[in-house]
């Protein structure tokens, strides 16, 4: 069963790599914001998978925190792109 987790983790890493390329070369700023948002979601999935690979079950709190933090960061970046200030 652990090979399934490992294969999924490798697939997610390949996805992370591809999205990172887009975050670096994206010509407009919204491409980069989109890539950062997608990277946050893939990170949450990766954390949950690492939990199952190692056999312990205490990583779920971290996944919840990641989800909330990446949402707030995306909103902050968007507010700056739209209004020019962080008020």
């Amino acid at each position, binding site marked *: *069963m652990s090979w*399934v*987790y490992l*294969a*999924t983790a490798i*697939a*997610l890493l*390949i*996805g*992370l790599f*591809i*999205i990172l*390329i*887009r975050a670096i070369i994206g*010509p*407009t700023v*919204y*491409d980069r*914001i*989109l*890539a950062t*948002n*997608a990277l946050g*979601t*893939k990170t*949450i*999935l990766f954390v*949950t*998978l690492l939990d*199952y690979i190692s056999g312990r*079950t205490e990583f*779920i*709190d971290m*996944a*919840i925190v990641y*989800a*909330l933090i990446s*949402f707030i960061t*995306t*909103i902050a970046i*968007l507010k700056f*792109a*739209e209004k020019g200030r962080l008020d």
Partner: protein
Amino acid sequence: MLWNEIVTTVLLGLGCVVSLTGALGLLRMPDFYTRLHTAGKTDSLGQFLILLGLVFVTPDLLTQIKLVGVAMILMIAAPTATHAITKAAHLNDLRPWTKRDPGGEP
């Protein structure tokens, strides 16, 4: 393998295929709005499939509830973020790529 491991393998495989396709589309699509389609939609669906697949192999109930909780949070937050990005891009006059434009971004 037991039945729950088969279900988990199927769901994890589907989730991986969806996520990888979305990431590939993010790289290959010519314009921002097309990339938004691939990344935004496959993001929300892929995370739901993978987290739902992991529910079936969890031994205790509390972790299962927390996994479903994370899936629900992401189900609300990820489409909201995609909507906010689209609205910001549209309000800042980012025009979509039409057939008359030459080429398009690589």
